[in-house]
């Protein structure tokens, strides 16, 4: 009996060791949510790799131009503006009221049946905003510099939307309280999106500080090439 106990104790050491090692190996091999296939991944996903390859090829093409482009990186939850492949502006997204499935829907809708990872920005809608510099100050500056005051003013958006074809919407909100451009039109847009939402509209809502929103709002010109790193 004692010898049995001793042999059991002797065996328990290696068993625990083997279990620990196998547990560590399995944890290391596990993909983190949101991770994507890279050339060095141990677990290979051909379909995922092909999409990643398309994204990289598309970015290489966009980087050849001297024009800035927007990157919706749902793999790293980041919004970026890039110029020749270099990040010139980035914001880690705090995604509001959006579930993982909605990110997938957004990504899938963006790529469409042709798996296209680049779309031009088609619409920009400002719901409400405030002025960064008081008009009275700008009037003095304008008088001194002889530049028109409307060129000197910067709009701080309270809420705006960027929209691509096929009803793909990025809704940006800040903490400031702005003046609505048109309450009637805002209501119409909201109603339309509430209906479209039930019909399969792809909308992601992002909250950001006002300074970041100023840059994104102004940099997002109609036609701006937008690249997506889709949620995996």
């Amino acid at each position: 009996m004692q010898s049995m106990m001793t042999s059991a104790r002797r065996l328990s050491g290696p068993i625990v060791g083997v279990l620990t090692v196998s547990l560590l190996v399995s944890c290391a091999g596990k993909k983190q949510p949101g991770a994507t296939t890279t050339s060095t991944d141990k677990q290979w996903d051909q379909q995922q790799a092909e999409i990643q390859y398309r994204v990289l090829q598309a970015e290489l093409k966009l980087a050849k131009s001297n024009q800035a482009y927007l990157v919706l990186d749902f793999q790293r939850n980041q919004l970026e503006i890039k110029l020749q492949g270099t990040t010139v502006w980035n914001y880690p997204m705090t995604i509001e009221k959006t579930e993982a499935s909605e990110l997938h829907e957004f990504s899938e809708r963006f790529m469409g049946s042709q798996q296209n990872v680049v779309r031009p920005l088609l619409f920009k809608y400002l719901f409400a905003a405030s002025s960064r510099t008081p008009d009275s100050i700008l009037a003095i500056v304008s008088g001194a510099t002889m530049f028109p005051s409307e060129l000197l003013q910067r709009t701080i958006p309270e809420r705006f939307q960027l929209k691509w074809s096929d009803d793909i919407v990025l809704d940006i909100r800040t903490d400031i309280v702005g003046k609505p451009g048109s309450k009637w039109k805002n209501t119409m847009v909201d109603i339309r999106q509430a209906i479209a939402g039930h019909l399969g509209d792809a909308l992601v809502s992002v909250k950001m500080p006002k300074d970041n929103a100023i840059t994104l709002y102004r940099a997002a010109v109609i036609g701006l090439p937008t690249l997506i790193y889709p949620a995996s």
Partner: protein
Amino acid sequence: MKKVFFFVIVPLVFLVGVLVVFMAITREKPPEGIKLALVDTVATNFPKDEKLARKELGNAEKSLLKLKPVKPYIVIDTHANRIYYRTEDSIYLDAVCSTGSGSELIDSVTKRKWVFNTPRGVFKIHNKIKDPWWRKPDWEFIANSEPIPKNESDRMDGNVMGDFAMGFGDGFFIHGTIYERLLGINVTHGCVRLGTEDLHKLVELTPIGTSVYIF
């Protein structure tokens, strides 16, 4: 049966009709002249063989990495009037600046036209000048309704560009200002103005040859 038709089906059809009309009316039309297929990413020749596919993906990742600057670079955000000295992951300096107003000036006599924009794109720091002098261009005299001087020394002003100027090409500089209160507003003729303290920090951080990204 008639009741069901009048009280259920008719209102339902009416409601659907209203919704369809509403969605059609409020549908935005895409702006004209926008190319929808910006980059053709459909025709990729991605290998089916895993080994080849890994190699191909690795090559694409490397090509993209090569585009990223190894050393810190300057970013000028003309939208928010901010300047950064940064890498992809870290920001070493974040300061308020002033960039071009975007306004136009036309010389009524010669019809020459200037647009006071800060140029966008990628540039390099060519030089660093201590105690710079401003050589007033023709537009400065035209804007003030003054005659353009024939003597070169009448164009020179040593009091407006601050302690340093860093040229990034085509006559554009990052320099100081005596109008620090106007920082954050687009009041320049294309140059980038910085406050004294931030200018000193940036000049110290920036070697000649540093890339400047302006957007």
